[in-house]
């Protein structure tokens, strides 16, 4: 019988590399290896997850009881704004980018992404954007207009300080980073698949990544435009969002949500992909209705561009627009339901085991279903008039993003940690994390449904004792303590397992797909030989199906690997200089020279980039 050990017999390939790789810090600064960039993204995402969680802990303390004065006014609003901005853009998005970077090439049998240097550029632009977003704390000020940044609350008149400038500047860099990454990964998945890997044999995780990369590439431009208009309003005195000069603040809402709703699917689809990889492994069955799961993901991606108005039912778009957006939104329930039933179908008749990744993947199903079902309520425009901007909506999107997206990413973290580090994470600590987090998130977010029904608006820093909101808020804050404890267990688990975890080997979970035929962690070239794929579960069939074994060539392959490069960092630095100059335009004289210099740096380093041999 064939086994995964067969792949250890393969000979190491012969390299062609333009320049030998650097070592140490310089290696991490110049690397174009998708795995190293994935680790960088993942580390940043986990650090920001802690920061965003700390912000939530602080404002939940303020809301624990009525009439408290821990964080009031714009301090509280700043915590809320930074919690959401951090969690969406700096925690979940880079964690997704980490999985995308590390595993898409491995899942499809490629040696790297299509444009390795562009990938490094995405990473540095993300890093600079995230630092700028948080830099306003140096001036003792947080952006406080909500993560949605509704104009004209973001105007110089409503928020004269610098915080909103840091906010748009940071987000603009993140938008550039995401758009570039989107193009890069679309090309990668469509062009670099292993021989025999037809589109329908692409693993569901890679498929969902393909869908979201299209969403990134097409949904970030509207918000980037919106942010640049905001920058012009704030720095140069234009009036795109100023109504007394003929502008229209609702323009921002359309630009933002035309990005914002596809973004929601960017956050959830990868976790659906991860769950679709994990359930089959621990059920020992193929994913039930794999094609249906893939097509429903594509369908969600398409329809996701036609639903943004459901965030604006209260904005006064008129009944026709309300009706259209309500109807298109309701349609999203259909492919989502298809996915849920196919996951249940995967469990049904399987032989289930329950290690930590499976526990997270399994609890993903009901938690996400709860969030999806309350979403069906919001799709109903007349009902949404009551629920919009209330705690009911807060409950809804936290079930989707914490119970769904984040739990899916945790599942992926426990599942793929052995591949990334070569060591297993502790099962006991993982279970502690799982239970604390699951109990905590339900304690926190479930009572918020009730708060919404009881008429509590979101983003208020205090509430009167006689409004009937005391008990639910108290319980919600208790839940945050559980979640915090769970996250601490995760951090401890990560740090200790890195050194002391059990050695994993190539295929610790008895899994199905190509990433598990490589060493753990994989060498820089990923695969010792180019794998040939005969089915959607190449490794499973290698192990279990006579005649579908992956052939291991006896000769070493001759391969070319991309060399390290400083150029991506240079171009990102140029972009950083441009936005720094623009954001300080009104306070520092002649700072526009910095932007100008940044433009020169970008042009110069792009020239060096294209003429650099790789």
């Amino acid at each position, binding site marked *: 019988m064939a086994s995964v050990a067969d792949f250890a017999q393969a000979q190491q390939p012969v390299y062609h590399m333009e320049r030998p790789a650097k070592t140490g810090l310089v290696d991490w600064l110049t690397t174009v290896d998708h795995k190293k960039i994935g680790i960088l993204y993942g580390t940043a995402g986990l650090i920001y997850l802690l920061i965003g969680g700390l912000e939530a802990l602080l404002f939940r303390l303020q809301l624990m009881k009525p009439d408290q004065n821990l964080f009031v006014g714009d301090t509280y609003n700043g915590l809320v704004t930074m919690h959401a901005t951090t969690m969406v853009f700096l925690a979940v998005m880079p964690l997704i980018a980490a999985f995308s970077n590390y595993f898409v090439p491995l899942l499809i049998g490629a040696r790297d992404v299509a444009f390795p240097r562009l990938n490094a550029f995405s990473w540095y632009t993300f890093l600079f954007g995230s630092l700028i977003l948080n830099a306003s704390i140096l001036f003792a000020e947080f952006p406080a207009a909500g993560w949605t940044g509704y104009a004209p609350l973001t105007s110089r008149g409503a928020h004269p300080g610098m915080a909103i400038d840091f906010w748009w500047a940071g987000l603009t860099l993140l938008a550039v980073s995401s758009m570039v990454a989107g193009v890069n990964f679309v090309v990668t998945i469509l062009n670099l698949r292993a021989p025999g890997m037809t589109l329908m044999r692409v693993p569901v995780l890679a498929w969902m990544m393909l869908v979201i990369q299209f969403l990134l590439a097409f949904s970030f431009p509207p918000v980037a435009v919106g942010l640049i208009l905001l920058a012009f309003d704030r720095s140069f005195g234009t009036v795109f969002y100023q109504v007394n000069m003929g502008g229209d603040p609702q323009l921002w809402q359309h630009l933002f949500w035309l990005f914002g709703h596809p973004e929601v699917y960017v956050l959830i689809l990868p976790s659906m992909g991860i769950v679709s990889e994990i359930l089959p492994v621990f059920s*020992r069955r193929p994913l039930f209705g794999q094609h249906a799961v893939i097509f429903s993901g594509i369908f969600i991606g398409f329809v996701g561009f036609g639903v943004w108005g459901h965030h604006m039912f209260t904005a006064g778009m008129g009944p026709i627009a309300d009706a259209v957006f309500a109807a298109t939104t309701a349609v999203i329930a259909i492919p989502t339901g298809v996915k849920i039933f196919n996951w*249940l179908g995967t469990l049904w008749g399987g032989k289930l085991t329950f290690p930590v990744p499976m526990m997270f993947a399994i609890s993903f199903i009901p938690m996400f279903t709860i969030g999806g079902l309350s979403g069906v309520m919001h799709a109903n425009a007349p009902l949404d008039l009551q629920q919009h901007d209330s705690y009911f909506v807060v409950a809804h999107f936290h079930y989707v993003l914490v119970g769904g997206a984040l739990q899916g990413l945790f599942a992926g973290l426990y599942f793929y940690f052995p591949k990334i580090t070569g060591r297993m994470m502790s099962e006991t600590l993982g279970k502690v994390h799982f239970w604390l987090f699951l109990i905590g998130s339900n304690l926190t977010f479930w009572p918020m449904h009730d708060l919404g029904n009881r008429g509590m608006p979101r983003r208020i820093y205090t509430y009167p004792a006689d409004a009937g909101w005391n008990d639910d808020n108290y319980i919600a804050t208790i839940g945050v303590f559980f979640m915090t404890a769970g996250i601490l267990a995760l951090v401890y688990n990560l740090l200790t397992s890195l050194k002391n975890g059990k050695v994993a080997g190539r295929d610790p979970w008895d899994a199905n797909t190509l990433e598990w035929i490589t060493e753990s962690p994989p060498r820089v070239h990923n695969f010792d030989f180019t794998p040939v794929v005969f089915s959607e579960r190449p490794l499973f069939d290698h192990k279990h199906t006579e005649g579908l074994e992956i052939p291991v060539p006896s000769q070493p392959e001759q391969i070319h690997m991309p060399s390290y490069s400083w150029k991506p960092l240079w171009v990102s630095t140029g972009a950083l200089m441009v936005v720094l100059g623009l954001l300080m335009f009104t306070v520092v004289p002649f700072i526009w020279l910095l932007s100008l210099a940044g433009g020169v740096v970008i042009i110069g380093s792009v020239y060096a980039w294209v003429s650099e041999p790789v």
Partner: protein
Amino acid sequence: MPQKAPVVSACHGNSSLSGSSDQRGPSSPLPPAKQIGASLLPWLRPLVVLGLIAVAQGLAGCSGEVAPRNTHTPISSSGDISTFFYQMLLYLDIAVMAVVAAIWAYALVKFRRREGDDTLPPQNHGNMKLEVIWTAIPTLIVVGITVPMLAGVFQMSKRPDANQRIIEVDVTGKQWWWEFDYKNDTANGLQTATELHVPVNTAIVLNMTSADVIHAWWIPRLAGKRDATPGRNYPVYVTPREVGIFDGQCAELCGASHALMGTKLVVHPLAKDAEVDYQGKKVTLESYETWVQHNQADAAKPASAEIEKGAKLFSERTCPTCHIIKGQFDTAIRAPTSGPNLSHVGSRLAIAANTLVNNPENLAKWIAKPSAIKPGSKMPDLNLTPDEAKAIATYLYSLK
């Protein structure tokens, strides 16, 4: 399972919802509770208990507190539409969740791998018939809920027939209070702050707009919220059918004191006075016409030397630059930055946008240092001595 019944029955919340958490009753696809309990994985049992408690707690509003701003005890037909869809979708959601949870829990118990079993289960890749079923049924459900919803959208945006009494009010959001300008009917020309006064069973048209950033006016028991957007004028149509005082607040993040941008809807009886419950106290509401007549009159003239002193200070401390007191200080120009009309401020229930109960002590506290009560308040700190603040408060409180 046994935890469920006492939790639900002990509930003081919306009784129509209490029964709804009984979905996993005899007709559900789950086997009898005892068998499930016995065969549950040890780690699954706390999850089920937790889930049941949470369902009862969250959906039935079971914390035992009263909910004076309950969105689902509406006082207008517009609110009824929202509540109708809430009830409908709640039952639907619970039914769907029950099916998903039942299949999920059954699969977790039934299909776990036994000790030492190393064989592979059947490797079927899917089932076309099932795919069609679980695409078609949700599609039918979606169509079934979308058609009445569309009717609801258009019903809510229907302007009331012109052949009835319609009261039209411009609602302007300002950082951080609400201003109401009465545009027609007997109240034509009136201005109030924070409190909107309307007669019961009469069609109301509210034109939502804003003087600065986007706000959203929301009285949960009246109906859903609407944004007040600068440069736009979006109408809301409601007909309140219950006499009473209803609290609400701004629902769109609008700056530092967003949390303190409260508002009140006061629904007056048409003819006779009525006694209503408000925050556990009995309050007498005069008829709408009495209220209009009282408020159309000029402000009360100072009746004592102490009040006279307060009026003088009010004038000296430049308060009339922003505030109108009809018949006494009419110089303030209406502008986005101007403050509330104070002609009858003494008769208000609350001040500082529903943040403080209206009494001379609170008024003095507010006037002395507004930013201590509402962060970022646009009303400047005038550095009044406590005596000055008290005198002005006495004057204002006399403006019944």
